[in-house]
């Protein structure tokens, strides 16, 4: 089986600094793929490349058999790559339901006159998406009581869940999560980890950046370790995490 997403020889330079240097990486279909590495290793940069936020200085991206390097950001999203952000970026002043519906943007197609004159198809699409939004909100563990609250006034953990629901709303093939567990306690981390497993169970592949090794070990099918923008190790979690080079570069005494 071919990989879902393949990055070949990706290079990102910021002025003189080479943040990513010739990275090769492949995310398999239906897998939870962990991307780990010390702070500043270039993980977020890679994720930004994989979602079109940063045009790599060099290299190719192939997603689902198609070259996607030249697309703009919404093009990446339309092909089926959905993401969350390291610093949560929900739309202020929008309710939870509305924010989640934005994730389904590409699935609406009614024309302006149809919207203004109230076409039946337009209404049906809206209903269907609202129903789906409710499903996904329940799926990520948010109750009906938060649906009409302004998303940015929720607590941090709940905002994370809204972000995940919003990303899932586009029915992506690959979900990219940048440190979704940061700032959560052990219990909440476990809940989100379960959620990620359920996402995989639906056939959606996940790329996960995370620093909590317990979770990474139990959750990921495959790991890529970055250091100074280069691939330090790649493979099954147990093998990678027992690699002395990885332990020296990344793992601390307590984990």
């Amino acid at each position, binding site marked *: 089986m071919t990989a879902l997403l393949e990055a070949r020889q990706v290079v990102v330079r910021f002025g003189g600094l080479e943040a990513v240097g010739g990275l090769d990486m492949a995310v398999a279909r239906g897998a939870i793929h962990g991307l780990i590495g010390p702070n500043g290793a270039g993980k977020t940069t890679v994720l930004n490349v994989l979602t079109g936020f940063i045009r790599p200085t060099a290299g190719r991206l192939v997603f689902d058999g198609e070259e996607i390097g030249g697309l703009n950001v919404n093009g990446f*999203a339309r092909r089926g790559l959905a993401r969350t952000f390291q610093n949560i970026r929900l739309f202020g002043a*929008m309710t939870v339901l509305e924010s989640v519906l934005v*994730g389904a943007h590409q699935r609406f197609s009614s024309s302006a006159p149809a*919207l203004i004159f*109230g076409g039946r198809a337009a209404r049906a699409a809206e*209903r269907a998406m609202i129903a789906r939004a409710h499903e996904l909100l329940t799926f990520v563990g948010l109750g009906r009581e938060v649906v009409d609250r302004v998303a940015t006034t929720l607590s941090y953990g709940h905002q994370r869940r809204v972000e995940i629901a919003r990303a899932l709303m586009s029915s992506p093939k690959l979900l990219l999560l940048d440190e979704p567990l940061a700032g959560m306690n052990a219990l909440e981390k476990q809940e989100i980890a379960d959620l990620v497993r359920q996402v995989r169970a639906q056939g959606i592949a996940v790329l996960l950046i995370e620093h909590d090794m317990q979770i990474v070990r139990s959750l990921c099918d495959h790991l890529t370790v970055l250091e100074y923008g280069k691939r330090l190790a790649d493979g099954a979690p147990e093998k990678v995490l027992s690699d002395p080079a990885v332990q020296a570069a990344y793992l601390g005494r307590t984990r």
Partner: protein
Amino acid sequence: MDYFGQLLANGLVLGAIYALTAVAFTLVYGVVRLVNFAFGELFMLGAFLTTSLMLPEVRLLGTVVPMPGFPLPIAALGAIVVTGIIGVVVDRIAYRPLRNAPRLAPLITSIAVSVVLQSLAQTIWGAEELRFPQFYLATLEPVVLFDSIYLSVMDLVVMATAIVAMLGLSLFIARSSLGRAMRASAEDQTAAMLVGIPVNRVVAAAFAIGSGFAALAGLLYAQTYGFAHSSMGFLPGLKALTAAVLGGIGSVPGAALGGLILGLVEALGAGYLPNGTAWKDAISFVLLVGLLYLRPQGLLGRPELNSAGRGSLLGGASSAGVGWLQAVFARFDALLTRGAAAGTPAAFGLLAVAVVVGLMVPSDYWLRILTMVVIYGMLASGLNVIVGFAGLLDLGFVAFWAVGSYLTSILFVLVLKDGYGIAPQEVWWLLYLNLPLAGLLAAGFAVLLGTPTLKLRGDYLAIMTLGFGEIVRVVAINWMDLTNGPMGIRGIPAPNLFGISLGSPRAQFFFALALAVVVVFAVARLVRSYVGRAWVAIREDEEAAEAMGVPTARYKLYAYAASGFVGGFVGVFYAHSQQYISPLNFSLFENILLLMLVVLGGLGTFIGPFVGALIWIAFLQLALDLPFVQAYPETRFALLGVVLIVLMVFRPQGLAASARVGLTMPGARAKEAA
């Protein structure tokens, strides 16, 4: 060479003055991310204060008052210090309470402050020019360079002052601890407080220095052109803002460069282009628009400043005000929230009220005023689409309105009546065709003007669209064959249906009301769908919206088109209702007024634009009846400015902000709940 040299000299002097004022804009923007429109008026105060201090006596408030007759340097110093203090006071009263308010609130108060200062100056110094006195330096022989360029000693003084002041300031900002604190406060006020920076004092210092620079520029201007006048600050203020943006707002060397370029281009353009003086004002804006298109952050600006700016466009209630006032607002908000939640029934209720009012009001005078309220409410609703929902601060909206008004006027008057001798009554139906036609034309025009702005954000976008608006206006004035120029177009027929004139004030009111129903209905349907959600998502976080699959560029253009459509559509009716239009109807001031109405009423609500229009136009009329205003007519606008500042300080989010609109299709959720 002779001619060129002279133009060059003029350009350098003008450039120095623009540069000094631009520094004021840039400095304050750099600290609080606020375009303080009031600097134009502080510029004017600097001129008046210096002139007054130099004269032996001045007529103030109609009575002659003896003055000290200081020499220029002392008078200038006094004026700079006093203006600096005024700047700090203005910040304290009108801006500081709004530090955490939505971003447009302080922008609106800054415009109000301008209005207040200008009408106060007019009240104090009168409507005539105050001549700048003769003094020793100005009587010296000019210096001759290259045998051909004559520079007066004062011209040299102006340039030298500008250079010294700007070098000093640049060094100060880059090197001094206060300068660093200013930049830190600009980045993140909370973090700045946490490291021990007294943010309020730092901001006050920026205002003091900026106002001092504006005053310096103003007095040099008065000296160069020989007079001070209450409206002298407006255009140089606008040009200086342009210069600041051209150079990259927030950068002091950028402001200097921008000012210099603008001064030179204007002087040379006026001298060499055919009919150059008439087009002079358009030149700077063409330059601005072109440059921002190629380089969105300005010449020396940092790219990251081309961002939506800190803080949301909406939200952020004020905590100002005593308990009972807050309680009143809370009651009012609850009502609005309930009304907005009710949606359609509430809209019908309001419509019924409007119909009853239209039937009951006996006086034609008040009916005309109410018609204006509806027209301005509709126009503000159009602006609200682009500013309130899509979050693009468009200061060129009047151009779309002008397109509609001119289209119908040109067709009815210049083409059919004057060209073919066809009486308007015979083609009464054309009006109804023109409404959608002008809407489409203006929408197309909006997309055309919107396209180059796509890379711009926040305040840069505002300035670029302002440039477009001004270009359109200058064209309207100068393209005599098409628009009749400044004379405007007269004799536009009143609306007419099957030969029945709808010219009576009552008929016009209902006509306007019917159009308002159409406008609000169409806008509401678009906003309460995936389109509106995409707009709001762009407003709140463009990159995140893009990552969710929203083609943001296309949706921004849709917002321009929708907003342009409303502008053109309403513009048609406006022309027929006024029966006379001229470029004066479509000035920057009108655009700012519309923006004010939206902010006052509540951005991103359906009712806000109408609430804003109602309050504003009612105040405008009521102020006329005050005895004080009747005694000093110039104070009417000062009073309104004060009212506006008070409203903004107490309700920065707008009066009807609680009437938040849902962004899902009405009815689509009713079933789901069951």
